[in-house]
């Protein structure tokens, strides 16, 4: 038995209310989907059209689906956290300390790794190739593999519901020695490690892939300084991905060696050193927050330029900002532990470096406002998100600058003030950016616009909910309340503010409902909101020059770029008709595209098994998983028929037919 199941026993199966509930709801949802697909006979369609697709546009949409599901999961966690803290005055509350700690660990991990990261990689997949005038990413197989690793990681983090019943209770960065075997003997931390290990590998591969795509696959004529701002900020973000995700991988590997084989990298005794982990994890962790933030900056740049109908003011500055932010963010990690006893010189150095990041960040905001000032702004719902961002982000940035001063950080570190800071940044910065992007690019993806009225309502609800839930946290921070408290003395008088924060959470839930309703309404009214031009906002960049949704190959004729804001330039100089319809240019060429492949799915599945084997110490399963993954790679490398050709006649046909047929024609 031990050989076959390792540490896994009957006792590991769900037996507490939350694991039973979680497992049951997931099984039911899975069953529902299964029945639906079988009943409608859609399995084949799903497999061929979506799951095995190498089309970055479809992969992008799949990222969005997974990230949205994970947002619900992380949101439920958030609700449970707030409920506990609102009730837990005295010895109250409905959760045990241990359970509460597992929830906030899962919440943080999921929101960063699976929600924000998922949305942004999805967006990059969809938009980047279109904006640089490419037909695909550089390595299509790697792209499906990255997505599936991400999806496998997302599944993995939910696996503890079924087996083991506990997640890490260590906080989202699992600092040792708390996360070492001595203090966390259960499987929770192992689940944490391996879900990040699997999805982190996906992020790294995506990073390499998209970076090469940007550097190598731009349309002829698009020099670096003619790239759209979104491409630039993604470039900055991807540089950070490839330079810092290896740190994460190795750090997690060392931690797992400690846990699985009794090594002593980060233990307190026998020569290990937890401070090493703290340094390593933050030298990935700080860049990570900018990995999430930089693409959002790019989104705002695109939106501001488009909706003020003006080329971006200070493009050169904005490019410099993106690169400076990317570079500086690798030099500030120590600000997360000024309180670990480094000397004044070291602390001051990192404090000052931290402050420096505020310079390019501030310059960006000034330049966006200047663009709006010079232009003719339209306050669409996408612009609402932008303005919401300007206000929340400036507030959060001020809090950040304060935290970056060691003398202040000593008092604010690990308090709810810090929690409020980073939620301001991640919600008001990255998440609002994602919402703006959804509003802005939705018509490109679907061919019809999102309902503006509901978009604006959702925005106002979001910002109200956000302020109501996080202002109390700033105040609580000033009252000296530490983060992650599962209960507190009634005499302290904190409960009221926690309850206000809980109210904010409810408002945010309403806001999310408004967003869901927005999508439903828009689908219902898709006839009225249809956009046949492919360019509903009077856009400036290349993605607006194709049909909506774009054909598999993105561009029937690869455009020649003469200027920045390439599409605007074409519109102004009257070339655009040629390009959009392809009518003027009947001479299409054959287009070579990558075939679908399931190899990514197989490799991810095998690596999933490896992770599972490590969690439960099942040696044979680990071997199977590892050998399986390697075998897949080897087999694939002998497959030379990985591409297919779309004949020029077919291209012509597709170009002249309606959108629906284009979708169906795709392989």
């Amino acid at each position, binding site marked *: 038995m031990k050989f076959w199941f390792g540490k896994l026993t009957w006792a590991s199966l769900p037996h507490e209310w939350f694991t039973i509930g979680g497992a049951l709801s997931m099984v039911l949802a899975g069953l529902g989907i299964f029945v639906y697909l079988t009943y409608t006979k859609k399995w084949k369609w799903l497999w061929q059209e979506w799951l095995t697709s190498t089309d970055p546009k479809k992969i992008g949409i799949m990222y969005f689906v997974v990230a949205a599901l994970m947002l619900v999961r992380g949101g439920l966690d958030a609700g449970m956290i707030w409920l506990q803290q609102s009730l837990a005055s005295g010895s109250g509350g409905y959760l045990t*300390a241990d359970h509460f700690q597992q929830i906030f660990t899962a919440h943080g991990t999921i929101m960063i790794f699976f929600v924000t990261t998922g949305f942004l990689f999805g967006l990059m997949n969809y938009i980047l190739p279109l904006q640089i005038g490419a037909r695909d990413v550089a390595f299509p197989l790697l792209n499906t593999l990255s997505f599936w690793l991400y999806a496998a990681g997302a599944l993995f983090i939910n696996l503890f519901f079924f087996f083991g019943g506990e997640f890490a209770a260590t906080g989202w960065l699992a600092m040792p020695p708390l996360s070492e075997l001595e203090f966390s003997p259960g499987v929770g931390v192992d689940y944490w490690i391996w879900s990040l290990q699997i999805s982190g590998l996906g992020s790294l591969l995506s990073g390499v892939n998209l970076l090469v795509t940007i550097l190598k696959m731009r349309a002829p004529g698009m020099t670096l300084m003619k790239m759209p701002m979104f491409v630039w900020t993604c470039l900055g973000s991807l540089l950070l991905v490839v330079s810092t995700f290896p740190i994460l991988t190795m750090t997690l590997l060392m931690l797992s060696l400690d846990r699985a084989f009794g090594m002593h990298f980060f233990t307190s*005794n026998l020569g290990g050193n*937890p401070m090493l982990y703290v340094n390593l994890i933050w030298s990935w962790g700080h860049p990570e927050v900018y990995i999430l933030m930089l693409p959002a900056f790019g989104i705002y740049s695109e939106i501001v330029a488009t909706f003020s109908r003006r080329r971006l003011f200070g493009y050169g500055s904005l490019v410099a900002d993106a690169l400076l932010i990317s570079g500086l963010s690798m030099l500030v990690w120590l600000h997360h532990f000024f*309180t670990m006893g480094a000397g004044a010189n070291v602390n*001051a150095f990192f404090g000052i470096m931290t402050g420096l990041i*505020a310079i390019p960040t501030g310059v960006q905001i000034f330049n966006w*406002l200047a663009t709006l000032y010079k232009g003719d702004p339209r306050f669409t719902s996408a612009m609402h998100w932008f303005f919401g961002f300007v206000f929340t982000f400036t507030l959060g940035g001020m809090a950040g600058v304060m935290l970056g001063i060691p*003398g202040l950080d000593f008092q604010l570190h*690990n308090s709810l003030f810090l929690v409020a800071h980073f939620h301001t940044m991640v919600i008001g910065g990255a998440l609002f950016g994602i919402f703006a992007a959804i509003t802005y690019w939705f018509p490109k993806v679907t061919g019809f616009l999102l309902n503006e009225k509901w978009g604006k309502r959702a925005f106002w609800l979001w910002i109200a909910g956000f302020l109501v839930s996080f202002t109390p946290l700033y105040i609580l921070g000033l009252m000296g309340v530490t983060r992650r408290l599962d209960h507190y003395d009634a005499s302290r008088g904190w409960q009221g503010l926690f309850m206000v924060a809980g109210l904010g959470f409810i408002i945010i839930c309403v806001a999310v409902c408004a967003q869901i309703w927005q999508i439903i309404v828009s689908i219902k009214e898709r006839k009225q909101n249809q956009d046949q031009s492919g360019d509903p906002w009077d856009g400036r960049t290349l993605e607006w020059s194709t049909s909506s949704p774009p054909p598999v190959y993105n561009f029937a004729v690869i455009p020649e770029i003469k200027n920045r804001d390439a599409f605007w330039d074409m519109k102004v100089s009257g070339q655009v008709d040629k390009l959009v319809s392809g009518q003027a240019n009947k001479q299409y060429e054959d287009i070579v595209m990558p075939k679908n492949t399931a190899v990514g799915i197989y490799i991810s599945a095998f690596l999933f098994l490896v992770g599972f084997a490590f969690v439960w110490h099942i040696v044979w399963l680990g071997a199977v998983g590892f050998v399986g993954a390697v075998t897949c790679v080897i087999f694939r490398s002998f497959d030379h028929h990985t591409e297919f050709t779309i004949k020029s006649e077919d291209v012509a046909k597709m170009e002249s037919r309606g959108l629906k047929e284009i979708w169906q024609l795709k392989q």
Partner: protein
Amino acid sequence: MSKKQKIIILYLVVIDVFLLGLALWFFVWPKIRLVNFALLQPAGEVAIKEYMLFKLVLFLMLVVAIPLFCFAVFILKRRKHEKISLFEKNKSHEGLWQIFVWLVPVILIFSISVINWKSTHDLDPYKPLSLKKEPIVIQVVALNWKWLFIYPNERIATINFLQVPEQTPIEFNLTADAPMNSFWIPRLGGQMYSMAGMTTKLHLQADQKGDFEGFAAEINGRGFADMNFVLHSVSETDYGNWLKNVKSKSLKLTLKEYERLSEEEKKHEPEVFSFVEDSLYEKIMEKFMPDGGYMPGMPSHNVDSLDNNNPSFSY
């Protein structure tokens, strides 16, 4: 102006007023004392300096942020009359504007950097507070889930509470015999980590009499939320009496008793010990050190260097 724009403007005005109010509030604050605002009611030299730093930095940033917000409001409010030409010939002033947009944050951040450098050295937790008065030394051991405080010179120990004379510098030496922790008494000053096998230092002082709460600020397991303590700051004479009182009891903290204590994992009521095992603190640290305690390249692991005035842990 449409209704929606009006709402937006109203909204922004509210935020601005809010911010201005906040700024004012901080400057007239000392007169308004409410209960509970630990960081805004500093009761010790260090906390007071940190609070002043807080106000100063907040003020500097508002100087830039408020005009920025006003500019944003102006853009929202403004009605454009002339139609923008598609061809954007007009690129004037871009260079000037670029100088301006870089200069403003550079000046702001430069001044904050100067403050940063100075304050970091001034508020270095390793720096003794004053030379006039001999500090009391307190050795802090973070356990699961309670704080053990050893007064090595007085040879007594307490759990989950501290008694100190007012207006006397305190030198905390911190270590842990449990997961990494962070020691925090908000009204006296900022945090410092406590880590197994290492010593970190923190200098604080209570300027007035009173009870000041202390917390464990770094997540460290199940009992995290209960790991609180109170620091009683009393007059010099009361402190002397207290010491005498403690000494007259007969609760001893031997190594064996310590082992028992460190293994019991539950919420602990405050307790005193009238006698402490010789160099208990050093023995606790030694538990984590191979080969008699010296680890190359890490002075913090060297027990010999633990003499009090010499910061034994630095990068």
